């Protein structure tokens, strides 16, 4: 597998500009001759679809839900970063670049991250022009708040619904192109395979969720914007339909998968409360601006929070990290919460929670101010837990949230399959080993609005592509493989459910294996154990899963089964990746590699690389390749937020 990052030469600040100039273009009159498939309609997919269509390409866009507006970007709460320096507090493109590289614990490519910081400012302008109702100061200018891992205030927001508003902006732009018939929109389609012709991505195979029909679609390029794979753990903050299938199918066709073990565990989620639970709900990181995290100093203290005097509380983040305090990056906050709970200081019924307390902020700023900032989050919390954060502190615990790993892409966001691109969370490119808060929205829109069109033009301008038809062999073959796999999924169900397992039962088993052994803290012994236990779960799935109904109808159990089958395969490279990286970095804490103060200890001499996995066949061990990371413009340091 050849890994050529195609990072342009020259000074960091000029790379993107030079690259745009040296890239080939497609002239406006010729663009209508080219077609692009975009899979996914979150921030990345919707913005890419709209932008490519505006430029004149023919676009076919696919989503799994009933409407493109439902993609899980909609659930992002807190905000979007941009180096506008509107607050005049010392922000700059370089500072956003540096914060992101450092936040990612020096495991991302400098050039990509710098480009992200550069285009961040245009994103805000674009969204404002679309009518996104960002929060405003009383003078009418845009308001900002601060987020973890940064000492400047650069996060733009629309109440606690920033993801929703940005997505509806992109959905509006997409809707406009659908109306203009430049985008053909296919809803309730699940991508089952990517089709290669002469080694290039030339289309996809989908299952129509409403009819069960297996369909083929052709194009000149295929762009995946299919999000992250956090649901491998069963419980995560992801939407129920979020899955790895599209990325995994691409991987099996030859796309390298980078850093699959890099999973962000978000520190502020509502704790787990029962085994029937279907998902975890995130409470925006912005709450850490005003909320103070604490646990009782005494182990096993079961008093009500109000009965514990100040002197007996441990504000452990403020004490341990005086300069960042409660606003340390997510990985640091999560690990410290786990550490406190492991020490027996956790609170709540399960002991797996810490307090996030607003009492002081309410006293300082008044009830009204706090309610204006966080009212909808408090309401959401109260609906779920039946407890009011204005009266008693919230209880929070870390949960799987975002996956920094993803399909390997070069500077042009192209995977190792020519003509197959990956944008947004489904690629690995910008966040290294840990993503900063409010940077996912930034990256999704940067890729979709401002990066991908340049790459597509260059690819089409430098490659001569023959016409393909869905009646050709590769498409027919792919359809047949998809049909065969569905038949295999359904084969156990003929005899009824007796002695069988449901899809969710097996998914929960996989989730527990991953959370216990490849979760917040990892070690060689547990990872190796997980690797030996995984095949049995996989076998159990294929031999004993029971799926009611047939394939030629709406069958939600069958949809889930297909996704779980892929999670079961994917889990293997996650574990192998975690095992191979014998250093701690960002989200990835290897217990064997810690500093004396129990902070993550990086090993730049041996692990300053991206791990890229190659699929060599279902019965073969995957191969790992390395893309070395070189830092020309920043000096990797041990992260310190003290």
């Amino acid at each position, binding site marked *: 597998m050849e890994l050529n990052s195609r990072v342009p030469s020259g000074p960091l600040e000029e790379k993107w500009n030079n690259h745009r100039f040296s890239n080939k273009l497609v002239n406006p009159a010729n663009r209508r001759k080219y077609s692009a498939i975009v899979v996914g309609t979150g921030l990345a997919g919707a*913005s890419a679809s709209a932008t490519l269509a505006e430029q004149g390409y023919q676009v076919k866009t696919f989503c799994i*839900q*009933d*409407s493109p*507006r*439902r993609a*899980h970007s*909609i*659930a992002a709460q807190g905000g979007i970063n941009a180096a*506008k320096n*509107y607050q005049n507090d010392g922000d700059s493109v370089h500072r956003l670049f540096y914060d992101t590289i450092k936040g990612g614990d020096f495991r991302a490519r400098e050039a990509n991250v710098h480009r992200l910081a550069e285009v961040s400012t*245009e994103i*805000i*302008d*674009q*969204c*404002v*022009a*679309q*009518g996104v*109702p960002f929060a*405003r*100061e*009383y*003078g*009418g*200018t845009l308001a900002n708040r601060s987020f973890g891992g940064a000492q400047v205030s650069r996060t733009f927001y*629309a*109440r606690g619904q920033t993801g*929703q508003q940005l997505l*509806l902006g992109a*959905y*509006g732009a997409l809707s*406009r192109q*659908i*109306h203009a018939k430049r985008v053909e929109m296919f*809803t309730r389609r699940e991508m089952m395979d990517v089709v290669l012709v002469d080694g290039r991505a030339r289309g996809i195979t989908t299952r129509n969720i409403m009819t069960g029909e297996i369909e083929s679609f052709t194009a000149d390029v295929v762009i995946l914007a299919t999000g992250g794979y956090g649901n491998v753990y069963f419980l995560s903050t992801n*939407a*129920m339909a979020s899955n790895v299938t599209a990325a995994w199918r691409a991987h099996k066709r030859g796309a390298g998968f980078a850093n699959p073990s890099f999973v962000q565990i978000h520190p502020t989620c509502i704790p787990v*409360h*029962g085994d*029937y639970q*279907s*998902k975890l*709900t*995130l409470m925006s990181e912005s709450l850490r601006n005003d909320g103070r995290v604490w646990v009782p100093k005494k182990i096993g203290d079961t008093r009500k929070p109000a009965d514990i005097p100040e002197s007996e509380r441990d504000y452990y983040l403020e004490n341990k990290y005086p300069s960042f305090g409660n606003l340390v990056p997510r990985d640091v906050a999560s690990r410290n919460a786990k550490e406190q709970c492991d020490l027996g200081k956790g609170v709540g019924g399960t002991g797996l929670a810490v307090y996030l307390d607003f009492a002081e902020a309410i006293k300082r700023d008044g009830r009204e101010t706090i309610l204006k900032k966080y009212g909808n989050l408090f309401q*959401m919390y109260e*609906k*779920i837990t*039946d407890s009011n954060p204005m009266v008693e502190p919230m209880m929070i615990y870390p949960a799987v949230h975002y996956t920094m790993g993803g399909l390997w892409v070069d500077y042009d966001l192209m995977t190792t399959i020519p003509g197959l691109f990956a944008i947004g969370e489904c690629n690995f490119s910008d966040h290294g080993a840990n993503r900063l808060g409010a940077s996912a929205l930034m990256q999704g829109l940067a890729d979709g*609005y401002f990066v991908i069109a340049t790459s597509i033009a260059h690819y089409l301008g430098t490659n001569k592509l023959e016409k393909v038809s869905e009646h050709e062999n590769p498409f027919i073959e792919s359809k047949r493989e998809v049909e065969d796999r569905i038949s295999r999924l359904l084969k156990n169900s003929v005899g*009824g*459910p007796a002695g069988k397992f*449901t899809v*969710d*039962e097996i998914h929960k088993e996989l989730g527990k294996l991953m959370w216990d052994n490849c979760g917040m803290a990892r070690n060689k012994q547990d990872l190796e154990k997980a690797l030996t236990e995984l095949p049995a779960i996989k076998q159990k799935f294929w031999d004993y899963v029971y799926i*009611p*109904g047939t394939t030629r*109808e*709406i069958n939600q159990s069958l949809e889930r089964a297909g996704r779980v089958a892929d999670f079961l395969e994917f889990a293997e490279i996650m574990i192998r990746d975690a095992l191979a990286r014998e250093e701690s970095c960002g989200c990835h804490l290897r217990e064997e590699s810690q500093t004396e103060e129990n902070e993550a200890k990086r090993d730049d001499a041996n692990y300053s690389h991206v791990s890229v996995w190659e699929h060599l066949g279902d019965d073969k061990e995957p191969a790992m390749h390395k893309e070395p990371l070189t830092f020309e413009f920043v000096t990797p340091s041990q992260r310190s937020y003290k």
Partner: protein
Amino acid sequence: MSSINLTLKIWRQPNSDALGNLETYTLDSISTDMSFLEMLDVLNEKLTKEGKDPVAFDHDCREGICGMCGAIVDGVAHGPEKEVTLCQLHMRHFASGDTIVIEPFRSRAFPIKKDLLIDRSALDRIIQSGGYVSVNTGGTPDGNSIPIPSPQAELAMDAAACIGCGACVASCPNGAAMLFTSAKISQLCLLPQGQVERKERALAMVAQMDKEGFGNCTNFKECEAVCPKGISIRNIARLNKEYFKGIFLEG
């Protein structure tokens, strides 16, 4: 944590063309901390284990923002709690021994596809007809060059909070999508960015609404009562004003 026993009467319909009916199921030991959809998950696991067809229902984010879930629970869209979606409704609002009737969102423009799962693509087509600012990617002015008074931005945000679930349509005796349509029209007419296309937008979106078979508003206010995001019917007044201005001031 306590648990309750329930009787459920759920609308079952295999596909759009088939006749449907209410089936009765019993569920015991449901934790009151469960969400309504988790309760349905438990039912579906039980049905699957019994070799029966699980109940099809739409859902995705399960945190009240994607707008994918929704059903009529005991005659009320999204159930008895105010300002929540079905996924945010918790079982602590029910008592042991309750019988709960669960039906799909019904409206002429929302064909039932299976059980509680419906087709709401008509709402997408209303947005496609003009629910946006026609601005291409790139070349936009600096964000701060368009100052917007904070109260105005907040008012626009109140309307923009719509999640497109369709509860308003399902609850309206006229099957109107006026609350949904007015939310987008209000958001954009309250902001300077939306001024240029103001008239055309109102006319196009109302025309599409009619074409899809939605009814008109006659002030029942049922939509506002069930809206999980608390969208006010003042937005409908704004839509009417925009529409009339569009008709009389056209050209």
